[in-house]
């Protein structure tokens, strides 16, 4: 049995409006960040994975099972949605126990699983209060508890860190890591790119309904031959160094750091740059504190692909 999430030529339109278009994607287990601006198709992709919407074209399977086989499919899926509604008149505990009973669990295991999930998200103390009285952070946590309570193999999380304080973010992030380490798919969409970068094993970039890149951040960067990488040089002699860098040829832009003790340079050939730079530094006798790449981050690639529009279909 396949243990991947597969999109085969998947398109989804809402009338004339494009949700996602011609997505071919295969996701191995692990933590996967889903990145893109508003309207990029992130929620559509998540709803397609979880079977809440169907493809207009193509096919989605999750670990070998299609969403139509609801009894098998939804045993494997946990979805923390962006929707903020809850069934009428439920406490946090009752919500979880009721849903676990609908899953088919008997009373005792349903209570045990609900209690474990409540404890995991730090909601035990508030579990018997009405969900309608919960604040944003508590709602987010109870939605997360609902998504993980049946221990799914695939956890889909739409902006799961929204409304959480820093400590809660750290606790919740730890849950994602645990699930990922246990062999689950953990698919996270977030607009906080640093957090996606810190958590994710791989990243899927979407823009205007199109998949524009997928893989780990260095891998994506490596595939983008024309990607103008930013490198940094820390040195007290930064202004003098900056004036000589264009002599190297590989450099397209140089910018001094605000403190005057460093600079950023853009180059399309980082390896070639460092080779030439090292030779020049030795020849000139510059005292260099440190050098490195400044933007192998998800945010930098996002800015290049999405904000600068280099990843257009």
């Amino acid at each position, binding site marked *: 049995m396949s243990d991947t999430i597969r999109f085969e030529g998947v398109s989804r339109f*809402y009338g004339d409006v494009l949700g996602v278009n011609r997505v071919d994607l295969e996701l191995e287990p692990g933590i996967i960040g889903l990145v893109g601006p508003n309207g990029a198709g992130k929620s559509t992709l998540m*709803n397609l994975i*979880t*079977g*809440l*919407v*169907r493809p207009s074209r193509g096919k989605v399977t999750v670990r070998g099972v299609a969403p139509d086989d*609801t*009894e*098998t*499919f*939804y*045993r494997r*899926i*946990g*979805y923390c*949605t962006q*929707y*903020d*509604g*809850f*069934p*009428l*008149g439920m406490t946090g505990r009752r*919500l979880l126990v*009721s*849903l676990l*009973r*609908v*899953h*088919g*669990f*008997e009373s005792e*295991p349903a209570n045990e699983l609900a209690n474990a999930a409540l404890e995991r998200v730090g909601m035990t103390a508030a579990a018997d209060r009405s969900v309608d009285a919960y604040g944003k952070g508590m709602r987010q946590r109870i939605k997360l508890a*609902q998504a993980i309570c*049946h*221990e799914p*193999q695939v956890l889909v999380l739409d902006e799961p860190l929204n409304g959480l304080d820093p400590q809660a973010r750290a606790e919740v992030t730890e849950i994602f890591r645990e699930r990922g380490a*246990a*062999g*689950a798919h953990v698919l996270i969409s977030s607009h906080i790119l640093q957090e996606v970068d810190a958590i994710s094993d791989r990243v899927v970039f979407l823009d205007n309904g199109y998949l524009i890149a997928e893989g780990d951040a260095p891998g994506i960067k490596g595939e983008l031959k024309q990607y103008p990488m930013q490198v940094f040089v820390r040195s007290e002699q930064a202004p003098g160094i900056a004036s000589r860098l264009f002599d190297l040829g590989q450099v397209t832009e140089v910018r001094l750091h605000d403190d005057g003790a460093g600079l950023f340079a853009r180059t399309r050939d980082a390896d070639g740059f460092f080779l030439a730079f090292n030779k020049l530094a030795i020849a000139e006798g510059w005292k260099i504190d440190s050098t490195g790449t400044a933007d192998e981050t998800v945010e930098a690639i996002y800015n290049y692909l999405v904000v600068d529009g280099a990843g257009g279909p």
Partner: protein
Amino acid sequence: MEPMPTALVAPRTLRFRQALAVVVVELRKILGGKRILTVCLLASLPVVVVFLVAIEAPRLDGEAQRYFGNIYSVVVLGATVFFGCALVFTHLFRGEILRRSLHFYLLAPVRREVLTVAKYVAGLLAVYALFGGVTVLVHPMFMGIVGAGLSVTGMLHYLGITLLGCTAYGAVFLLFGTVFRNPILPVAGLLGWEALSFFLPSAIRVASVSYHLKSLLPVPGPIGQTFGWLAEAPTAASAVLSLLILSVVAVGLACYLVRRMEIRYTDD
């Protein structure tokens, strides 16, 4: 990862257990929601009307059954059962969509048909209890006040019609709640159809729930009394069968639609 315990249960047992869980959740929601106040008001309407008519009426002797039949037909079937079922059953899916909470159900490993039927059963249990209870209450109350003597057979006869009415109207309104974004208009349309279809040829009249229900009354309904030529009625067996077939078809269609249902709350 270990398989979850539910994967080891026989499918039929699992589905029954899931259906039972949905029924319990839905009953809590129906009985705990604000709508139940309106439904209870509708349920109390026959009690008030029957009481007022009974204390104002002279001793009816042989006419008591006909009097009660008229009141039952107009107040219990025409108002309480019709509007009560509309309130409860159109809300089973539409209410969840408006609250943006339907996805919790659709993300559960339960067949959508099981979910739909279980919701319908929960609605039926609620309206059976309320409107069946009202029928059991008002029949002996009326007969007692007008001095016609109690009749358990008569009471059970009316109870059967009430339950059948809830079953048929419930199924139709469940379907309305899955088809229409705003079920008020189709409910109003059905109300008009139910009221006016008696004046249409019998071939068209058979498509009316009330036509079959009123044909089951122990005495002819008010329309039949006034316009004898319109009172042509189906046999009891065919009326019951027609209503049950209608219910099965409507619930079946609702199952089909729920199976294809997507979560797009922004459209609603």
